[in-house]
């Protein structure tokens, strides 16, 4: 943080009067380990190697990064921090406050990141005005996926409001089809919850409730309506949803056992892996309501000693935001590039929709961070909210009770 990477590197290079800078080294802690993800990261590793770098892989999967964060804490405390770490959302700023992140402003400014990243996403990458992380992709969380055949057979269109959704769901239920494929895991409950909240509270209300933690909004009638809709959603889920993995829920939509699923765009990977075609076999649309909930993966650079490692950080940051990696990675991953100037010709129709909505919502202020995926709030607060959401969804708690609990839990977590 004290000295930028480039000045440090060049200073050393000058004192040694050597023409070449140190060979870039990077130990990268991340949790992308499944086949498709690994292929995507391997692209980065190859580019890194082509530029003379040595990449040491430190993958730790599990719990959406929980296990990796456990390892990270141990590494930092033992004074052996990895060079680059997959980190996202406010966690980046939290680590910065602990004084362990490096400053990569030199690269960011040289590469003109500010011009190619949407402002709200760029905001997540900055700590006290300096760049401290590099964004990889934008996952949209508020997707609704549907089985095209099932919808056509029952004369249902993709819903544009929650009332339409409820009507469609009732129709499917009457036809003996599970309306909503869902896995009863806390993070999946939260994913549905925030999609519903965005639709009912609107972008403004969502911002107030889940970014600013405004008590008025958290206790408002709107929030009661959100929980009311969640109670309805509970009725649209089959009996055996508890603990189901999200991909098994996706499979239910694929097989025509269920009509809809609300899930981020990684679900697309499951459809594509099974040879399904977007538009023909399955449909994608944003959930009812205006707005765009994003989940941005990024890498933060830790304060490490050694010119080779610092050179590695600079090179890595440059490559991550580079056009080539942004395109290839996101084609594999189902998400869209974080930078807006990447050509999307090779992407499918869902990704096109996502990119268009991202630009539009960035203009009208409804480009919002996903709370369920750790983009909006610090862990303690988002976890407290999820506790209430999942407790409500899995019991017969009333909406009023849930709202009261929500306010208490958020208060308690502050």
């Amino acid at each position: 943080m004290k000295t930028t990477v480039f000045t440090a590197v060049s200073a050393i290079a000058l004192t040694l009067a050597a023409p070449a800078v140190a060979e870039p080294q990077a130990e990268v802690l991340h949790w992308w380990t499944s086949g498709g993800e690994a292929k995507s990261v391997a692209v980065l590793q190859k580019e890194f190697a082509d530029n003379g770098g040595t990449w040491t892989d430190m993958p730790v999967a599990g719990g959406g990064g929980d296990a990796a964060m456990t390892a990270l804490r141990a590494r930092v405390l033992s004074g052996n921090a990895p060079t680059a770490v997959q980190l996202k959302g406010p966690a980046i700023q939290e680590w910065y406050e602990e004084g362990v992140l490096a400053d990569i402003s030199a690269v960011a400014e040289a590469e003109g990141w500010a011009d190619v990243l949407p402002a709200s996403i760029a905001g997540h990458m900055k700590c006290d005005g300096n760049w401290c992380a590099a964004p990889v992709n934008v996952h949209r969380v508020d997707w609704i996926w549907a089985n095209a055949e099932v919808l056509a057979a029952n004369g249902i269109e993709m819903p544009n409001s929650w009332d339409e959704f409820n009507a469609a769901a009732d129709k499917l239920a009457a036809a003996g089809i599970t309306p909503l494929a869902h896995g009863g895991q806390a993070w999946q409950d939260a994913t549905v919850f925030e999609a519903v909240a965005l639709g009912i509270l609107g972008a403004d209300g969502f911002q107030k409730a889940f970014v600013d933690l405004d008590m008025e909004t958290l206790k408002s009638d709107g929030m009661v309506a959100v929980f009311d809709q969640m109670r309805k959603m509970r009725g649209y889920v089959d009996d055996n949803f508890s603990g189901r993995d999200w991909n098994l829920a996706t499979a239910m939509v694929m097989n025509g056992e269920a009509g809809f699923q609300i899930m981020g765009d990684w679900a697309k990977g499951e459809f594509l892996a099974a040879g399904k075609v977007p538009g023909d076999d399955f449909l994608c649309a944003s959930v009812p309501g205006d707005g765009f909930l994003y989940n941005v993966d990024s890498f933060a650079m830790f304060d490490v000693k050694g010119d080779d490692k610092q050179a590695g950080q600079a090179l890595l940051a440059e490559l991550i935001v580079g056009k080539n990696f942004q395109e290839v990675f996101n084609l594999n991953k189902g998400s869209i590039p974080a930078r807006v100037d990447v050509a999307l010709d090779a992407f499918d129709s869902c990704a096109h929709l996502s990119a268009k909505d991202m630009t539009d919502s960035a203009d009208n202020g409804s480009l919002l961070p996903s709370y369920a995926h750790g983009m909006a709030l610090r862990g303690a607060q988002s976890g407290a909210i999820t506790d209430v959401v999942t407790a409500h969804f899995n019991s017969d708690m009333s909406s009023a009770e849930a709202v009261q609990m929500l306010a208490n839990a958020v208060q308690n977590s502050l």
Partner: protein
Amino acid sequence: MTDLVINPTQSRPWGKILLRALLFALLGLFALFYLMPLFVMVTTSLKSLEEIRTGSLIAFPREITFEAWRTAWSGACTGIQCEGLRPYFWNSVVLAIPAVLISTVVGALNGYVIAQWRFRGANLIFSLLLFGCFIPFQVVLLPMARMLGLMGLAGTIPGLIFVHVIYGIGFTTLFFRNYYVTIPQELVKAAKVDGAGFFRIFWSIFLPLSLPIIVVTVIWQFTQIWNDFLFGVSFSQAGTQPVTVALNNIVNSTTGVKEYNVDMAAAIIAALPTLLVYVVAGKYFIRGLTAGSVKG
């Protein structure tokens, strides 16, 4: 060795047969209960992904394929490397063997002292050791990370061995103490009269009697250390990650496509060394016992 068999001598032969049948029915029923998950795992690992996606999860495979096993061993992605579990296996071996040996030896000596060389405070030390078994590992992660950093062992295999030995001592001591406490103290007294020293008595009297408890301890320690994930993931770095971390990376990816057949095959492969220890050691377990040297 007990020769006790539930054998109601008064009852007629058919009663005996009935009792025997009941015994085997019970044993068989329990065997089914224990085998159920393994059945699911093995059948799933032999199916193709297509069949898993479309068919019932709990059914015999329509078509048997060993593709998933090959992938799990040498092709599954555990990060950007797609070399399966193979590269991580060795780390676990290098880590588990010394850790098991050291903690067993330390436990044997501790147990020997506490059971046979009682001195003031020995029971207190034993209680402290025992209570130490209960400290949740999540609690020690962060301070331990700091200590390992200070000792220069962060991210190394010796560091992991150290951690496993420290938190294994409580159990190994418990096992050996409870075993040695059943050996009459007169034995030590007699040996001392004969002029044998501390280590001499241990070496020539206690150690030869210890095979069964050594087997139990080794089984326990090896299982704990081999299957450990929390320490393995926290105190390793690239290149020293044990096999459970690789297994976790294959199984627990959050947003990737799930390949259950590879998951299950990987789990069975990762468990093979422990399974082997159970099968092989089980034999020695009995052999040690039938040697007939242990008396209460």
